[in-house]
């Protein structure tokens, strides 16, 4: 299936492939393939390679240091990276803070923050969810009170990915409680080293600590760190959520994970038997493959239909719904391929092969299965996505 039927892009695709072949190191490639946690060191190393190539921010306009590529080129770029198990650029800076500041930021904010994102020297985390505000994001209560030329923040944020590594947070804070809950929300950029800001790393099911809770105790942030107007932050949030939906189908990543699974089941065992010859295993993989074809085609239609508008509508929520299903299904099939060895968990989270029990893929497969339960919960749970479609698309 070759949907991007544009000879002009073939050369570009070849260029990316050559670049990845030459530059992507095995340690990073393998970590991504196994769904493991990439260290900040490895992330930064990769970032510098991309930066040298000028490929940090495919979607940003050229005048802000991005590639300024049209959508089709971004699509191919993302596809090739995923298929090669290349890491994304550090996600929140390039994909969220950059577009946010380019759209809503002051000239000073752009000048101050965009270079650090492009260089990879400044890491960002998101500050949206709170203990009482998960699905119902607009009910957030973490309070920022204006005090002269500062805001004083008190409260807590929950589920901040990479918070322990981040230098800055872009967060939504409650600046007014008198009106509708969507009103009275403000975007602030908070240095993670701020006095009064403390973190509690949260261990997840797979044993990793990719998220944390952030506590704000009289944290002072200059008014200059406000993005947009006071109490107008909900618009920014919606803008960011709509960005977050782009690529949320994770088609190419899923293709790569499925390729890996096919490699695993095609390995003959000691008796020459292959799991791939089990009709149920073969059918399951075929079904996933077909679901993925449908996902890819639908994503393609939504992105490139000339009859549709420039922005992805709420229909894109269906991409997340189906995308998470596919990813979780691949992870379940990969774990199942490990058979009894799925249970063994000898190595630490960053352990190397030497300490693994059973086939190499088994342990990451099991961790991956449990880790990926998150994707139907985070970023707007699948239930919330259905509510969105029901309301915005179906008019219910």
């Amino acid at each position: 299936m070759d949907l991007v039927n544009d000879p002009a892009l073939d050369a570009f695709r070849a260029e990316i492939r050559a670049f990845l072949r030459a530059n992507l190191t095995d340690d990073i490639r393998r970590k991504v393939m196994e769904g493991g946690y990439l260290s900040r060191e490895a992330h930064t190393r990769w970032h510098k390679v991309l930066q040298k190539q000028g490929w940090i921010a495919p979607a940003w306009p050229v005048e802000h240091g991005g590639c300024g590529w049209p959508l089709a080129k971004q699509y191919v770029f993302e596809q090739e990276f995923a298929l090669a198990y290349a890491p994304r650029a550090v996600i929140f800076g390039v994909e969220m803070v950059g577009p946010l500041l380019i759209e809503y930021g002051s000239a000073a904010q752009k000048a101050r923050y965009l270079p650090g994102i492009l260089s990879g020297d400044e890491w960002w985390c998101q500050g949206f969810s709170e203990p009482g505000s998960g699905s119902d994001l607009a009910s957030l209560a973490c309070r920022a009170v204006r005090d002269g030329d500062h805001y004083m923040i008190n409260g807590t944020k929950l589920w901040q990915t990479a918070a322990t590594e981040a230098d800055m947070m872009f967060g939504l804070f409650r600046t007014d409680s008198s009106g509708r809950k969507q009103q009275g929300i403000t975007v602030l950029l908070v240095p993670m080293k701020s006095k009064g800001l403390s973190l509690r790393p949260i261990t997840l099911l797979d044993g990793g600590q990719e998220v944390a809770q952030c506590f704000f105790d009289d944290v002072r942030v200059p008014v200059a760190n406000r993005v947009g107007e006071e109490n107008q932050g909900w618009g920014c949030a919606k803008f960011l959520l709509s960005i977050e939906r782009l690529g949320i189908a994770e088609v190419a990543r899923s293709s790569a994970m499925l390729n890996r699974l096919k490699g695993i089941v095609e390995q003959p065992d000691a008796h020459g038997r292959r799991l791939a010859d089990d009709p149920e295993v073969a059918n399951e993989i075929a079904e996933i493959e077909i679901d993925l074809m449908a996902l890819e085609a639908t994503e393609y239609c939504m992105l490139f239909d000339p009859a549709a508008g420039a922005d992805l509508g709420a229909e894109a929520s269906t991409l997340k719904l189906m995308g998470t299903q596919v990813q979780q299904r691949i992870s379940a099939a990969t774990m199942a391929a490990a058979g009894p060895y799925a249970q063994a968990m000898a190595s630490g989270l960053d352990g190397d092969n030497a300490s693994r029990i059973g086939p190499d893929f088994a342990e990451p497969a099991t961790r991956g299965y449990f880790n990926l339960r998150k994707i139907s919960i985070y970023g707007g749970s699948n239930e919330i996505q259905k509510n969105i479609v029901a309301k915005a698309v179906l008019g219910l």
Partner: protein
Amino acid sequence: MSLFRTDDQTQFAESLGRTLAGFGDGAQRRRVRATPAGFAEEHWRALADLGVLGLLVDEAHGGTGGTMADVAVVMDAIGRHLWAGPYLATGVLGALVLAEAAPALRDATLPDLVAGRHRLAFALVEPQARYDLADVTTRARRDGAGWRLDGAKALVAYGEAANTLIVPARTGGGHTEAAGIGVFLVPAKAAGIERRGYGTIDGLRACDVTFEGVKLGAEAAVGDPGGGFDLLDRVVDWGTAALLPEAVGAMTYLYETTLAYLKTRKQFGATLGSFQALQHRMVDVFTQVEFARSMAGVGRLALDAAAAERRREVSAAKLYVDRAARHVAQESIQLHGGMGMTDELDVGHYAKRLTMIGLTFGDRGYHMARYRAARAA
């Protein structure tokens, strides 16, 4: 070809929609389908006038030299309006086969086909064969310069209304071998042919056909009379790819109708559509329809690919669309409650058609095996 409609195709779809809507409401269209012919001659002519029959015929033979993307527009409209008639076997399969037929036969027939004066039917199924294209026992034996045909075919859609039957027949080889199969164009009124007609659950008209010593000229064989399996396989893939937009059209109708019902029907003092459990199920229906729509496009694009890729992707598309169709059909009935069970509502009739598309040109088991085989190839 692309996944997207051109502006011309969008306009074409609109005029088709108006024409099909003009054939009457659901009950009126059902009355037409219940006639012995199963369709109305004047509707056929109206469609021919719109140019639907010549889409796959080159301009030299009076057609417009279009693509399957144009056919998809027609099939989608047919699905939406639950129209039934000999379009698929005439305008799609017939055009395809005739283009490869003996030149004299081709040149004589295609212009009539385009004009709506010549209909074809596809005598594919044999009683014992299920979906196995190579399971052909109908025999074509050399008979002088021509052929002699003996055997039986079943479930030939609109076979009674056809002027020509497309008949796969065995000229050699064992009876589930791919080698030794030919595709023949058989005049429907030739001596030795008997047709026994009946209705189908989804409102089509079909017939069983027997051939007893039917004499055919040499020109009846399309291409290599012993190596026709690839042609047959390709023709069925085109037929399959054409059924998918019909399914998507029918699903779109069901989605829209069910959504409208949820918005108006009240129980417990509120519209059904205000109940979250039903909202989420309706979102699933919407999602299935949209994904099936893309996947029908994938099946269509695959027709231009090499055989293994074509087989793999057409089968993938059929599997996906069939599953979605089954789901949408079941949910549409269920969400309509008791009304969904009635013959007077259109919902059940669309559901029946969708269910039967799932059993036409191969079911899940068939296409899953074919998909896996083509992937391994």
